[in-house]
């Protein structure tokens, strides 16, 4: 069966099927939610402020629900684009399992709940940052940036970068320089991560009219941009060791992981990844340019290990390199 154009009967059958609870969970983008929870928890722990475990748990839950709300709003607003892309056409809204209005309603209700509970449990700063993040992702990124500029994921990446600041603010009521440093690391990590992905799903974005960098500027410019951001990222990731945030474990992870990241980014820059389109059926299938796929996979591991190192150091009470 041609996956590019499912027959009407298949679509009609899907639309006629009642939505399952799993469809609503899928709207919350649980995979994205898990990364958001992890980085927010790191920010909360790094704040070094005594906090009730109950309050900490509720704060992390609020951030998770807020991230889920953003995902539901995104899937509601983006259903027209998602229906045109192989990677996303099986999502609950474009496949007809969930109504677009239901996805948007779920997103709005969960947004209000998450921000309200965050305010009640912690403080106004954390709640305001959470509200800003949801609005920025659902409105500024999804409705505007994504459809209008090849810099969409650069600016829009701020939404994914803010959770550690929210976690820090939830614990301490403040957002100091080190909290924003964690935010900056994720912010600079986002372009090479998503552009590596976009190099092997360019057809999808082009078909949907999304002006991703490889679609607008071509794969060669994208590979150069990935290398530039990778250099910036690796340098920035070393900074926490100098600001009293990271210790020896963190420095070792940031340095060794940074070398691997740069080697892969340089290999990608020299490759022809993205020059030949077609073939990639999905995000996690083993097709597409190997250089781009390798960097995409390593970028996830790199960010995870950076934050895991901070989490382990703070949890174990290990000393930082600078006090």
């Amino acid at each position, binding site marked *: 069966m041609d996956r590019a154009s499912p027959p009407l009967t298949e679509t009609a059958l899907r639309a*006629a*099927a*009642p*939505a*399952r*609870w799993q469809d*609503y969970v899928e709207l919350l983008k649980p995979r994205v939610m898990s990364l958001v929870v992890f980085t927010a928890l790191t920010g909360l722990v790094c704040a070094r402020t005594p906090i*009730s475990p*109950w*309050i900490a748990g*509720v704060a992390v*839950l609020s951030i998770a629900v807020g991230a889920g709300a953003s995902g539901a709003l995104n899937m509601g607003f983006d259903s027209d684009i998602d229906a045109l892309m192989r990677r996303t056409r099986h999502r609950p809204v474009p496949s007809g399992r969930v109504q677009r209005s239901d996805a948007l309603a779920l997103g709005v209700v969960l947004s209000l*709940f998450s921000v309200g*509970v965050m305010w*009640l*449990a912690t403080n106004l700063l954390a709640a305001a940052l959470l509200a800003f993040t949801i609005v920025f992702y659902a409105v500024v990124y999804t409705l505007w940036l994504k459809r209008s500029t090849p810099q969409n994921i650069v600016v829009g990446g701020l939404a994914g970068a803010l959770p550690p600041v929210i976690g820090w603010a939830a614990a301490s009521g403040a957002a100091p320089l080190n909290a924003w440093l964690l935010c900056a690391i994720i912010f600079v990590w986002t372009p090479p991560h998503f552009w590596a992905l976009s190099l092997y799903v360019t057809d999808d974005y082009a078909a949907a009219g999304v002006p991703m960098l490889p679609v607008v500027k071509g794969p060669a410019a994208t590979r150069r941009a990935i290398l530039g951001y990778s250099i910036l990222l690796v340098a920035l990731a070393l900074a926490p060791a100098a600001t009293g945030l990271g210790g020896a474990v963190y420095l070792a992870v940031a340095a060794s992981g940074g070398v691997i990241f740069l080697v892969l980014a340089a290999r990608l820059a020299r490759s022809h990844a993205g020059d030949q389109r077609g073939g990639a059926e999905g995000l996690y299938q083993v097709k597409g340019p190997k250089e781009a796929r390798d960097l995409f996979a390593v970028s996830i591991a790199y960010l995870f290990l950076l934050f895991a190192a901070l989490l382990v150091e703070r949890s174990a009470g290990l000393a930082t390199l600078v006090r």
Partner: protein
Amino acid sequence: MSQPPEGPAWLKARRRRSIAIALALAAFVIIVFVVTIVRMQGHVADVGF
């Protein structure tokens, strides 16, 4: 405007969604209760004797 589909599968799915919403609301009430108690304990401890 087309009528929403009805039938055993739809009714079952709607019932499950209603139960999920009820559980979510119950969880919300419990969270608010726990947060209120924890924060009140903190303030009581601040006041002291």
